[in-house]
């Protein structure tokens, strides 16, 4: 209790006429000065101005104030201003309380008398709280100047490259055996027309040459501890079995007796259990598909440089990083068998398989043929898995419309005689990409808008696509040689990522950002940032930008920084009272509470760097041992008592 020798200064702001127009500020100041413990109460046109701040500073020094109340605008606007003023005058800034008598009072009320009464109530409550406040010190923590980038798709590469170029140490990991992510499967990135693998190649080339970059493939994060500035991350790296001696000679592949569908070719072709994912793959060596490999050892015998060792075990790597960027990307929607005819014939393909068919380096050498024939009539069905289909995210996948129109142009340039129909819900070629839509139209592509999703029936050589054409008010059928399902983006492993990093997801299943509009590259956990399609459907260029934006946040946090300061408004355990019941540990959404021993006793302890001050633990603590700095029961109750005069 600071009650006896408490010396409080109260400052009421006019905010021009914003507050003073409705609230009788003089009356409030007079009233405040009558409250025991208040040494001085003043009012001024603009407390936030230089003059206003000096008023507070001088009083703190001259009148030896040990508590300050400012009644002004929203703390979101000027709490920092006044805190700094209080600090500069030599008083602990946590002995200051701000009251919002603008948004909460003058702006919401019209009756001068009642608004003034309310302002008095609010001021009285704040004074009561200040009497119970305790000085607090900011938490200062050393930072590790390195960043972990989880995922090596375009977004991850973009982030890693920026960070590495700026000089931070970067760890980039991917669960796949090679870098590059989803984009490596694309033949054209709309609208720039660069092949996906070629797009990421210079990024990867630059990155792997940098001395401050460490690449880990086949690797996944399995646990995260610590907090902003100093995360302790444990990574599991599955064995690659093949050493850097590999010369890509390919003898192993020839010797391997196992064949499985090749996912890098959209499963249109087969590959061996030991294989090279694609030409430019990094790391430049063969990989073994653990699920397919029978460990028969034929490859070992075939390898002329003895690069293969099947006895390698998985390993665990512990990293210390200052920040983490989550760029785990998306997975394309995989239609069910029979969904729009998929899986019933080789002539119903997904947009991904289309990419491979259009690629000069793809299974058909870039000739647009299926089953040896050039498909003449081609029907595209858009929004499969995003807005229509068996399991939808019910969210637009954003990039498909531009890609579809771009792909039709590509097909028409190869086979000008093709007839292309695009069945769509809405054409969403936003921004300048509308021009792709216009180009597709001008090249004779027929667009049919549907309300009810089309139906697909396989009939011998032809695939019949049924849809209602609204303009002519008739049901039409298109006998197609090929149907391309434009599949949406679904969250990639987001459930697992969300669990490990203690994040949350939006209704569509993608990872939730700190604020959809103004903090799209951050997560609610400080020091963990978000990039690319992990946060929601995104194009290649948008992922580049998102990656750079996430990197910017990490740079601001870590570049040339030795320490970070955190507000001490966090949860704190009274170890004397804690019974070690562990209820709080399970409550913390940020993994900030752990167990420690005081002698024989087990008690909870809060890592102030991880605690985000949400207060959940304090509410859950059954014994009252856990309290929230600045919002302790006694402080809140003092306010309640001051308001209502009731004994609580």
């Amino acid at each position, binding site marked *: 209790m600071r009650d006896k020798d408490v010396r409080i200064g109260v400052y009421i702001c006019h905010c021009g006429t914003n507050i003073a127009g409705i609230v009788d500020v003089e009356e409030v100041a007079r009233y405040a000065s009558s409250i025991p413990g208040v040494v001085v109460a003043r009012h001024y046109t603009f407390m936030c101005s230089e003059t206003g701040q000096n008023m507070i500073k001088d009083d703190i020094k001259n009148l030896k104030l040990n508590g300050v109340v400012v009644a002004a605008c929203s703390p979101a606007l000027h709490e920092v201003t006044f805190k700094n003023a209080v600090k500069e005058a030599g008083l602990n800034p946590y002995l200051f309380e701000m009251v919002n008598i603008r948004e909460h009072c003058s702006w919401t009320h019209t009756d001068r008398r009642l608004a003034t009464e309310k302002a008095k109530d609010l001021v009285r409550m704040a004074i009561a709280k200040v009497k119970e406040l305790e000085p607090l010190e900011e938490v200062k923590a050393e930072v590790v100047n390195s960043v972990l980038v989880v995922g090596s798709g375009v977004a991850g590469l973009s982030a890693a490259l920026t960070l590495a170029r700026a000089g931070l140490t970067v760890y980039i990991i991917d669960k796949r055996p090679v870098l590059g992510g989803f984009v490596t499967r694309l033949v054209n990135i709309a609208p720039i027309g660069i092949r996906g693998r070629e797009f990421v190649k210079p990024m990867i080339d630059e990155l792997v040459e940098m001395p401050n970059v460490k690449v880990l493939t086949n690797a996944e994060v399995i646990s995260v501890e610590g907090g902003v500035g100093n995360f302790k991350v444990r990574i599991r790296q599955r064995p690659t079995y093949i050493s850097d001696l590999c010369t890509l000679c390919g003898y192993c592949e020839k010797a391997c007796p196992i064949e499985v569908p090749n996912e890098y070719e959209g499963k249109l072709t087969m590959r061996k259990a030991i294989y090279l994912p694609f030409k430019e793959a990094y790391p430049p060596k063969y990989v073994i598909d653990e699920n397919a490999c029978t460990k028969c050892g034929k490859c070992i015998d075939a390898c002329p440089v003895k690069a293969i060792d099947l006895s390698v075990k998985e390993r665990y790597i512990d990293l210390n990083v200052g920040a983490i960027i989550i760029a785990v990307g998306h997975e394309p929607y995989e239609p069910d068998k029979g969904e729009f005819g998929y899986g019933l014939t080789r002539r119903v393909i997904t947009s991904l398989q289309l990419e491979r068919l259009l690629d000069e380096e793809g299974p058909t050498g870039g000739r647009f043929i299926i089953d040896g024939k050039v498909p003449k009539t081609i029907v595209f069905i858009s929004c499969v898995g995003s807005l229509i289909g068996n399991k939808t995210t019910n969210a637009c996948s954003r990039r498909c419309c531009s890609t579809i129109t771009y792909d039709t142009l590509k097909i028409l340039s190869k086979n000008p005689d093709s007839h292309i129909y695009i069945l769509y819900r809405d054409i969403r070629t936003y921004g300048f990409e509308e021009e792709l839509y*216009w180009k597709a139209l*001008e090249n004779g592509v027929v*667009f049919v808008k549907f309300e009810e999703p089309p139906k697909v029936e396989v009939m011998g050589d032809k695939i019949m696509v049924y849809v209602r054409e609204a303009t002519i008010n008739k049901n039409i059928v298109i*006998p197609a040689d090929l149907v391309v399902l434009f599949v949406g983006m679904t969250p990639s492993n987001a459930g697992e990522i969300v669990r490990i990093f203690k994040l949350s997801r939006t209704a569509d299943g993608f990872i939730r950002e700190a604020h959809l509009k103004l903090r799209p590259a951050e997560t609610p956990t400080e020091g963990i940032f978000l990039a690319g399609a992990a946060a929601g459907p995104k194009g290649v260029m948008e992922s580049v930008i998102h990656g750079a934006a996430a990197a910017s946040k990490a740079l601001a946090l870590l570049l040339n920084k030795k320490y970070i300061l955190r507000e001490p408004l966090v949860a704190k355990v009274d170890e004397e009272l804690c019974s070690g019941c562990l209820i709080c540990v399970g409550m913390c959404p940020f993994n900030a509470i752990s167990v420690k021993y005081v002698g024989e006793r087990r008690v909870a302890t809060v890592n102030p760097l991880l605690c985000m001050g949400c207060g959940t633990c304090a509410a859950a603590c059954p014994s009252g041992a856990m309290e929230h700095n600045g919002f302790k029961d006694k402080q809140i109750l003092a306010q309640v008592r001051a308001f209502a005069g009731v004994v609580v």
Partner: protein
Amino acid sequence: MSKHIEVRPEIYTKIRDFMKKLGADDFIKCFNCGTCTVACPIAEVLGIVPFSRKIIRYIMLGLEEDLVNSKEILLCLHCGECSEYCPKGANPAETMHALKTYIIQNYLLKR
């Protein structure tokens, strides 16, 4: 599924080529906004909606029979309002004009 009308891509190509020769193939730009229908002074009066968008749809879908049976084309007065308002420059008026020729060549003459 017998109620469904079959789309005829080759007919679409045929008509498009024909129209191209007449310099009237801007219709392929049509993106179905419906402005022409509202702009047309006779569409509503004569109850021939959606005109001229529907006619363009017939071509796009290769529904030749529907097309040559469309008396609407013959009713068009070529006032040019539709082309004036069309935000896409698809020139529906020109299309109607050229289609008259097509109908006459392919339907009336053959009969």
